[in-house]
C-alpha cells in the first residue's frame, strides 16, 4: 500500500489552491463540498472559479504565489500549468509538513485525491495510487451503478434512529440484526424509491416489535425489463434483480436480461408464447402472493413496462388485496425502444402531435373507436400488432385514414435480431406475409414512419435482411 486512505475533516479550515483554471476549479468543487475555507491564489480566475468567488465561497488573491501563502494552511493544492511553480509550492509545503497535492504529478504529492462516489454521508473513494487513473474511473462507474443515488438518504435516516435503536436493543448482536434487516429490506426500499416519510413510519413500527427480525416480510417487485436490449435495463431493475430470492418471468424477457438475476435466485417461468400453454393470470397472481407470504423477495419481471399492456395492474391489485407490500418499477416500453432503435420518433413537430397505444389483440376488452384513431396527425402504436395486422389496416382505411399512410412493423425491437418492415396501410399486410414476420412485433402507423429512412442508425449484427426489408 503506497498511500494510507483516510478521510480528512477540512470543514472551515484554511485550504489553499494555487491556480485559477478549470483544473483548479475541479479541486475547488471538492473543497466546496467538504465546506473548507478556500483561498485561491492566481492572477486570473476562470469562469467556474469566478462564480464561486462571486457567491462568496472562496477568497481570491489576484496575484502570483508567495511563500507566506501557505502559512497556517491545513492543506494545499497546486493546479497551475507552470511545472516550476507547482514544484516550488510542493517543496515549500513539504519543508513545513503541510499536506500538498500537485495535479497530475504524483511524485510532487504528499497526498492524492481519489475518485469518489458521493452518497453523502456515505463516500466511497477509489484510487490506483496514480498508476492507472482510467482504471479507477471505470471502477468508480461500476460503483455508481451499484450504489443507488438515495443511499446517502438511507444513511441519514439510519443516523436519526441510531440512539433509539441502541436503547431499544440491548445487545450488539440484536442491533446488528435489526440494522441488517432495515438496511436491506422494505425500509431501505422505501428510502431508495423516495418515500422517506413512509420509511420513517416503517422504522417506528419495527421499533415497536419484540424481535429485531420482524422486518423480514416478503414483498413483490413488479419490474419492467425494457424492450429487450439488456443495456436498456434501469439501475433499479438491476439492483432488485440482484437481491430477489425468486424471479417470476414471462417470454418477453430476453435471456440476456435474466442472466442479471442473483445466481442463487429461483427462476419461475410463467410465459406465454403463441400456441403454447401459458399460466393463467389468476394463477400468477396467487403464485406471487404465496411466494411473498413465504417471506420471499419476489421479482416479477415483465417485458417493457409493467403497466403498459403488461397486466401489472391486475397483479398489483391482487397483492394489495392480500396486503402484501409491492413496488412498481417502470421500464422502457416497447414503443419507446422500437421507436429509438428503428429511428421513428413517436411525436414530431410537423406530423405527429399525439400518440396512441392500442393492443393488437382486438378481442381484448371490446371495440376501439376507429374513427377517433384514424387521425392523420397522430402516431398509432399497436402492441403485438402482427396477428391482426390486416384487419387493423382495413379498419383504419375504412375509418377514413389514407391507405398511403406509412406504417412500420418492428420485429424483435432493440435486439440483434431486430427487423424493420416499411410499407403503408395498403401494402404492409401482404409484405409482412411475404417475408414471414414473427412476433413479438410492434406496429407503428403514421407520417413519422417516413423519417425511418434517414434515422435508421441501428444496424444489428445480421442486418443484411433488415436492410433488404427496409428497401422492400
Amino acid at each position: 500500500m503506497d498511500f494510507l486512505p483516510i478521510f480528512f475533516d477540512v470543514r472551515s479550515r484554511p485550504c489553499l489552491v494555487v491556480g485559477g483554471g478549470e483544473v483548479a476549479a475541479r479541486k475547488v468543487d471538492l473543497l466546496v463540498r467538504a465546506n473548507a475555507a478556500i483561498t485561491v491564489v492566481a492572477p486570473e480566475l476562470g469562469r467556474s472559479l469566478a462564480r464561486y468567488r462571486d457567491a462568496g465561497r472562496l477568497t481570491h488573491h489576484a496575484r502570483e504565489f508567495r511563500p507566506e501563502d501557505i502559512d497556517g494552511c491545513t492543506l494545499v493544492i497546486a493546479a497551475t500549468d507552470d511545472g516550476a511553480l507547482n514544484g516550488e509550492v510542493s517543496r515549500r509545503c513539504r519543508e513545513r509538513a503541510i499536506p500538498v497535492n500537485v495535479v497530475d504529478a504524483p511524485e510532487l504529492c504528499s497526498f492524492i485525491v481519489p475518485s469518489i462516489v458521493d452518497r453523502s454521508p456515505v463516500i466511497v473513494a477509489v484510487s490506483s495510487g496514480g498508476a492507472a487513473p482510467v482504471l479507477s474511473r471505470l471502477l468508480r462507474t461500476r460503483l455508481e451503478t451499484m450504489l443507488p443515488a438515495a443511499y446517502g438518504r438511507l444513511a441519514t435516516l439510519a443516523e436519526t434512529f441510531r440512539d433509539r435503536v441502541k436503547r431499544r436493543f440491548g445487545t450488539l448482536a440484536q442491533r446488528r440484526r435489526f440494522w441488517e434487516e432495515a438496511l436491506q429490506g422494505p425500509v431501505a426500499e422505501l428510502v431508495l424509491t423516495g418515500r422517506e416519510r413512509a420509511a420513517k413510519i416503517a422504522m417506528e413500527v419495527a421499533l415497536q416489535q419484540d424481535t429485531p427480525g420482524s422486518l423480514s416480510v416478503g414483498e413483490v417487485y413488479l419490474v419492467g425489463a425494457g424492450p429487450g436490449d439488456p443495456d436498456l435495463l434501469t439501475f433499479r431493475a438491476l439492483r432488485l434483480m440482484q437481491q430477489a430470492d425468486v424471479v417470476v418471468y414471462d417470454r418477453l424477457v430476453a435471456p440476456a436480461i435474466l442472466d442479471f438475476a442473483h445466481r442463487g435466485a429461483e427462476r419461475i417461468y410463467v410465459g406465454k408464447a403463441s400456441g403454447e400453454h401459458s399460466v393463467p393470470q389468476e394463477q400468477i397472481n396467487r403464485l406471487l402472493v404465496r411466494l411473498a407470504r413465504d417471506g420471499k423477495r419476489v421479482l416479477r419481471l415483465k417485458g417493457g413496462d409493467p403497466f403498459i399492456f403488461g397486466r401489472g395492474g391486475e397483479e398489483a391489485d391482487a397483492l394489495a388485496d392480500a396486503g402484501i407490500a409491492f413496488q412498481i418499477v417502470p421500464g422502457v416500453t416497447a414503443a419507446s425502444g422500437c421507436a429509438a432503435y428503428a429511428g421513428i420518433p413517436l411525436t414530431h413537430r410537423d406530423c405527429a402531435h399525439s400518440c396512441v397505444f392500442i393492443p393488437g389483440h382486438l378481442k381484448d376488452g371490446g371495440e376501439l373507436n376507429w374513427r377517433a384513431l384514424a387521425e392523420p396527425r397522430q402516431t398509432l402504436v399497436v402492441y403485438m400488432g402482427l396477428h391482426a395486422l390486416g384487419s387493423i389496416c382495413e379498419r383504419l382505411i375504412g375509418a377514413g385514414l389514407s391507405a398511403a399512410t406509412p406504417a412500420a412493423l418492428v420485429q424483435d425491437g432493440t435486439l440483434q435480431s431486430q427487423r424493420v418492415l416499411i410499407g403503408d396501410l395498403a401494402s404492409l399486410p401482404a409484405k409482412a406475409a411475404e417475408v414471414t414476420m414473427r412476433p413479438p412485433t410492434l406496429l407503428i402507423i403514421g407520417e413519422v414512419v417516413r423519417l425511418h429512412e434517414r434515422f435508421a442508425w441501428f444496424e444489428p449484427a445480421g442486418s443484411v435482411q433488415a436492410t433488404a426489408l427496409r428497401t422492400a
Partner: protein
Amino acid sequence: MIRHPEFAPGSVWLAGAGPGDPALLTLAALHAIETADVIVHDALVSGEILALAPAATVRIAAGKRAGGTQTPQWAIHEQLIAHARKGSRVLRLKGGDPFVFGRGGEECLALAAAGVAFRVIPGISAGIGATSAALVPITHRGIARSVAFATGEAGAEGADVDFRALGRAADTLVLYMARKHIGRIAAALIDGGRPSADPVAFVLDATTPREQVVHTTLGAAAGVALDLPPAATLVVIGAVAALGAVLARSEPAAHAASKRAAPAARRVGAAR
C-alpha cells in the same frame, strides 16, 4: 457486466434520462453520461443525474424552462453539430424519452443533414414513469385498453391537438405540460363526450422525494390545478386515474404523502 456500444468521437447520442429518479436511468444512458465529453442537457434533467458525469465533462444547459430563457431549437442543433465536428463525444440528454415529446426527431434531422453520426437511447417517458410511481396502471383489464399521450402547452410540439377527438381515441389520456391549460382541455374533452366525473390524477414531481398525487375529476380539475404547488406536473385522465389510490391501500405508509382531493377515489372495476 454489459458490453456497451462504442461512443465514437465526433458522434452524438440522444438519450432519455427518464422521469427524474437517477435509479430509473438505463444502463446505456449512464454509460453515455460517464463517457461523453460534452453533455447538452434539458432543464428537466436533474442535478443528481448530471452529478454522475466526471468532473471534466463539459455541461451545457439548453433547456426550456417554463417562464425562463430558452435556447432556440436551431441553436441547440448548431451546438450539437459544432461539438461533434470538433471530435467530441456529444451526449444530448433529455428528460423522459427523446422520441416522445422530446423533439428528438428534429435534432436527428439536423444531425442527419449535417452528416453527423448519431444514436438514440430510449428512456422511460415521464408520462410512464410518473404513472407507475403514482400506482396508476395506464392500461388495465376491463378498465383501459388504450392510452393516448399528448402535450397541453401552447406553442409546444403538438400544441394544436384536437382534444375533443383525442378523448374518444383512447381510454386513458396522459398529458404533458397540461396543467396551465387544464381548464380549456377538460372543457374540450367533456365537449367531446368524456364524462365530467371522469377521474383525473395530477402527479407532481414524479419519482422524486417530493412526489405528490392529487386525485380529482375532469369537471373539478381546473379548480384543483389552481391550488397545486409549483412542480413538474403530469395529468392522467380516465378510470385508471382513480385506481392509483385504490392500489395504494396495501401500503398506507408508503403513500402517506399522497394527497386526495374531492371526490374521494373510489374502487373502480376490479371485475373479478
